């Protein structure tokens, strides 16, 4: 009977467990979860603050999930080292767990820049875990002035989540635009305007030079007084366990398309892993939930003796703020085709006759058709590209392709 160990109890681990169980109903699965909660949906923490969900509904899997899958879970335990030679994991309480196959799904942690005077700030929060959100939730009050450092996905979702519960929100970022990792300048401007119309103030191209208690002194010389500080600058992959065990790491733990690390019997998945990005054509960390699940699932299948490759991962994001939806995928490389209608933006990026990436703001209907063009590397001369530029529709395909898509088992 195989012994499987997961380091991490998040979505990648769930993918891994379900991958293992698709082939192996018998093997023993141990989950080492640093967080003291059954698996939940991290991206929902902003919705929790907004009141659109609650901790019960945030559960990523039903209550009986671990039991039904025969998993032993160590809650609140941290793995401190991996011995790749003897195939064992050491825990923070001194215990050791042996494995035949190990999946490192340790996730990431907030990156906190060494701001001067940060220790003088009394109410400061990260915004990544459920505990972070619960802590922030407890600190919110109606007249609170909130400063969010970081205008990325996490910072802005946080802003949306708490807007109706605080007095004011200011978001600053060193970058000169919002969502700089997924939007180009024009699109960022549209989103920023929308956020501003919804009461979020921005200080972009500016950063905190030092904190003085409840005051942030900006590089530009401006001083911002705040009651609550949220740090959402970025995340680091938790790759040290593998690195220290002798595995190769870059920004994340390097894995192949089967999610195997360079260590024997050790796999990695999720935010801590650096796997193949089909849009980029190289490896990079894709810290998004769907990717975590699919990497974990791939790792699980392979750990259980199956053969599965995850070769068509692409960066993609679907994110909405105050009713405005934004979808992006792939890379913004090559020739750009734009179709802007009032209130919406549609930008497609075409390289080597294939869709490389897209940005949609507003009109996001059927966007998955675009995403599949990227993932499948569909040659654009096999679709009606003039129509593709205007709308995501199954009409872009030939009748023959549609017959297969809608007339067969898929």
């Amino acid at each position, binding site marked *: 009977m195989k012994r499987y160990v997961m380091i991490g109890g998040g979505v990648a681990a769930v993918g891994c467990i379900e991958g293992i169980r698709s082939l192996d109903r018998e093997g023993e699965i141990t989950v080492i979860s640093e967080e003291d909660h059954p698996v939940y949906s991290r991206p929902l923490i902003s919705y929790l603050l907004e009141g*659109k*969900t609650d901790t019960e509904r945030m559960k990523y899997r039903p209550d009986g999930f671990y039991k039904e899958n025969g998993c032993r879970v160590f809650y609140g335990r941290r793995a401190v080292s991996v011995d790749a030679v003897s195939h064992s994991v050491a825990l923070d309480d001194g215990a050791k767990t042996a494995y035949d196959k190990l999946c490192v799904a340790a996730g990431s942690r907030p990156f906190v820049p060494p701001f001067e005077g940060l220790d003088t700030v009394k109410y400061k929060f990260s915004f990544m875990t459920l505990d972070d959100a619960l802590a922030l939730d407890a600190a919110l009050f109606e007249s609170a002035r909130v400063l969010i450092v970081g205008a990325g996905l996490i910072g802005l979702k946080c802003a949306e989540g708490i807007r109706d519960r605080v007095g004011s929100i200011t978001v600053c970022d060193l970058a000169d635009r919002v969502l700089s990792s997924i939007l180009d300048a024009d699109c960022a401007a549209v989103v920023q305007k929308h956020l501003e119309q919804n009461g979020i103030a921005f200080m972009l191209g500016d950063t905190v030079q030092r904190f003085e208690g409840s005051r942030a002194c900006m590089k530009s010389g401006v001083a911002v007084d705040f009651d609550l500080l949220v740090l959402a600058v970025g995340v680091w992959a938790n790759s040290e366990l593998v690195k220290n065990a002798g595995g190769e790491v870059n920004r994340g733990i390097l894995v192949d398309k089967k999610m195997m690390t360079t260590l024997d019997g050790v796999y990695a998945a999720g935010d801590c892993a650096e796997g193949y990005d089909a849009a980029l054509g190289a490896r990079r960390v894709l810290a998004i939930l*769907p990717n975590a699940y699919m990497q974990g699932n791939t790792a699980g299948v392979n750990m259980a003796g199956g053969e599965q490759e995850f070769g068509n991962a692409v960066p993609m994001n679907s994110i909405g703020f105050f009713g405005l939806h934004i979808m992006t995928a792939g890379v913004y490389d090559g020739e750009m085709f734009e179709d802007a209608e009032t209130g919406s933006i549609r930008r497609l990026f075409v390289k080597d006759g294939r869709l490389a990436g897209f940005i949609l703001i507003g009109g996001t*209907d059927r966007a998955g058709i675009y995403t599949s063009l990227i993932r499948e590397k569909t040659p654009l001369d096999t679709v009606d590209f003039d129509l593709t530029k205007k709308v995501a529709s199954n009409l872009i395909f030939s009748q023959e392709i549609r017959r297969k898509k809608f007339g*067969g088992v898929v």
Partner: protein
Amino acid sequence: MKRVYVNEEWCLGCHLCEYNCAYANSGLKDMVVALKDKKIFPRIRVEGEDRITFAVSCRHCTDPICVKSCIAGAISKRDGVVRIDRNKCVGCLTCVLVCPYGALAPGEDGIMQKCELCLDNACGAPACVTGCPNRAIVYEERSETQ
């Protein structure tokens, strides 16, 4: 297992499937009460105009990417049917971003809804199929190779 299949050769673009779907999932006994003066949010949608039209609803994929991608864990596949737990969904539209068939769209409340083959509503069989005037939508078993 039985799935809904569409054949655009016979689709008339009449959009009756959309109305039958909206009605079937309204939980109301009268179509007029359910749909009059309302914008409908059907789970099957007709694409195209004039010569080429076809209806698209969930394909209930063998390996559904929406299930893997849902950030809330709200989509699952049970007994061959891909279902959504609308109580858990927060309307992030990630499933829209990944579905290669463009088969999902949010409901009136912004929360996702999808074709669940009318298994849980009063119809018992997909309303789009029973209401299609030209058998362009069928509910049947087909093999992988077909």
